[in-house]
């Protein structure tokens, strides 16, 4: 392909919240925030190491779906990370400061801050590049840190900021602004639907004290994904385990992962507090990649003494099948099905085999995308970018281009994406690339095939 055929997007139109920092003071403010973050975190150890070993060898370039599509050198992961590592070397290491003095290096400028802002939101934080880095750099972590520093000086995408504000200080206390009475109304609607479908009283129980599992889905599922929720309720009906939804707090989403560590911690506290209020034994996270990864990774860190264990619904359903508690009719789904690995499940190898065991137990015509599992391609809307509507053209045309090609190659009728983030993004990828494939959740299909 000649380079002229590549779609070049120089700037993505993201609406940022910019607190009133005078333009002249932005570089100073950036360095102050950077210094404060280094002082109050463990990032210095990581940066020290990365700044020493980063070789800019470019091995990561072939792994990045954004760079593969744009061909712009600033989209190469190590070039992007280099923006922040250069600032670190220049301002926060003794050698860097000395060299800067000897060579009269130029200071940090406004343009550098704009370049970092653009670069860190072109990255979907899928961490596919980590697989190939011979020096072990985690470019996703650098993106995360870069966004954190920017957000502390008031630069963060509006879509993320308003959602987190509603979640942490708003009336509803969740990212979609769903008040508890609306949740209850929705749950009784779903229970009616289940009754119509199966003739059974399948509950979506609320505020049950001492339940084995306290359930936190992506709260947007309560607006968009009735079948996923009913499928999960049906699985619990089959296993007979006790579970509950807490009306005090019922959102698994944690956008802190995407731009700010302080919010990440505050949101984890809310989840854990609700689990404790209900004397629940474990936290169960629904079909949502980043919600699962933040809970799994940070409840042990921020969850206080004896933090509750965290499991994901796919792990739960897989085990229920292994233990023979769940019967799925293998003759219901005849169409070809493929499975999209959410990066936040699969990159670490955490949830790769479980969904495949579930799928193979009742779906005959299952095809894989290549590559898949730990090496999967991002849906193109990772790292919180899916919530930024104005980025849609970038997300589906560039970030999601490889995924669209993969989807088309399967010839499948359905693509399963067990993640609220990937679901929204893949629906838009399918629309924008005019693909003949339908997006579906894993528990939607389970709902169709489950037998009692």
């Amino acid at each position, binding site marked *: 392909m000649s380079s002229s055929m590549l779609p070049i997007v120089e700037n993505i139109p993201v609406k940022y919240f910019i607190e009133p920092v005078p333009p002249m003071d932005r570089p100073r403010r950036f360095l102050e925030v950077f210094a404060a973050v280094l002082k109050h975190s463990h990032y210095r150890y990581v940066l020290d190491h990365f700044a020493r070993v980063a070789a800019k060898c470019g091995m990561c370039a072939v792994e990045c779906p954004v760079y593969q599509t744009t061909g712009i050198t600033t989209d190469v992961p190590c070039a992007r990370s280099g923006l922040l590592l250069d600032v670190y070397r220049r301002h926060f290491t003794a050698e860097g400061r000395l060299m800067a003095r000897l060579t009269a290096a130029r200071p940090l400028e406004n343009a550098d801050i704009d370049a970092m802002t653009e670069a860190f939101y072109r990255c979907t934080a899928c961490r596919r590049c980590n697989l190939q880095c011979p020096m072990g750099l985690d470019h996703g972590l650098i993106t995360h840190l870069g966004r954190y520093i920017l957000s502390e000086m008031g630069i963060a995408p509006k*879509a993320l900021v308003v959602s987190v504000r509603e979640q942490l200080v708003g009336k*509803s206390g969740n*990212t979609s*602004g769903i008040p508890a009475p609306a949740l209850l109304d929705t749950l009784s*609607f779903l229970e009616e639907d289940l009754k119509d479908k199966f003739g059974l009283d399948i509950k979506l129980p609320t505020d049950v004290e001492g339940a084995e599992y306290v359930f936190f889905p*992506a709260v947007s599922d*309560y*607006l968009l994904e009735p079948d996923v929720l009913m499928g999960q309720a049906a699985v619990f009906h089959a296993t007979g385990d006790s579970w509950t939804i807490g009306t005090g707090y019922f959102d698994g989403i944690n956008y802190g992962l995407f731009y700010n560590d302080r919010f990440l911690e505050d949101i984890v506290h809310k989840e854990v507090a609700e689990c404790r209020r209900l004397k629940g034994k474990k936290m169960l996270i629904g079909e949502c990649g980043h919600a699962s990864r933040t809970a799994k990774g940070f409840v042990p860190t921020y969850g206080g003494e004896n933090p509750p264990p965290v499991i994901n619904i796919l792990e739960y359903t897989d085990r229920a099948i292994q233990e023979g508690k769940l019967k799925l009719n293998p003759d219901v789904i005849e169409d070809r099905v493929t499975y999209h690995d959410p990066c936040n499940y699969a990159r670490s190898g955490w949830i790769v085999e479980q969904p495949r065991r579930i799928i193979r137990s009742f779906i005959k015509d299952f095809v894989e995308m290549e590559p898949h599992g730990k090496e999967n391609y991002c849906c193109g809307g990772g790292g919180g970018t899916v919530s930024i509507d104005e980025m849609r053209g970038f997300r589906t045309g560039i970030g999601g281009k490889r995924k669209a090609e993969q989807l088309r190659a399967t010839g499948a009728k359905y693509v399963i994406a067990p993640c609220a983030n990937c679901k929204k993004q893949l629906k838009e990828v399918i629309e924008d690339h005019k693909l003949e494939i339908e997006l579906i959740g894993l528990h939607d299909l389970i709902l169709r095939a489950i037998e009692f």
Partner: protein
Amino acid sequence: MAQLKVGDFSLDLDEDGFIQQPEKWDKNVALALAETEGVNELSEKHWKLVNYLREYYQKFGVAPMIRKVCKDTNMKLNEIYELFPSGPAKGACKVAGLPKPTGCV
């Protein structure tokens, strides 16, 4: 900030064209909002959907689940898209004077 002109007064709009003061909503505001969505006339079916969303929002403070909208108004999702091309959340809810949905929607 963008403004929506309705008769002789105007309302603040956010960048996505949603009204900022949901309590100021009335039928004329709905008509003006519909025009911004490229819907120049509101049929009985449009009003049925808009009024349903409005009533639900006033009772519960949020839009209902999309499946519930379809069931309660007896409309299919594609019919809603025919009425409001930007769909239930970003089209119909906007005209009904709801704020822009946040989070993963």
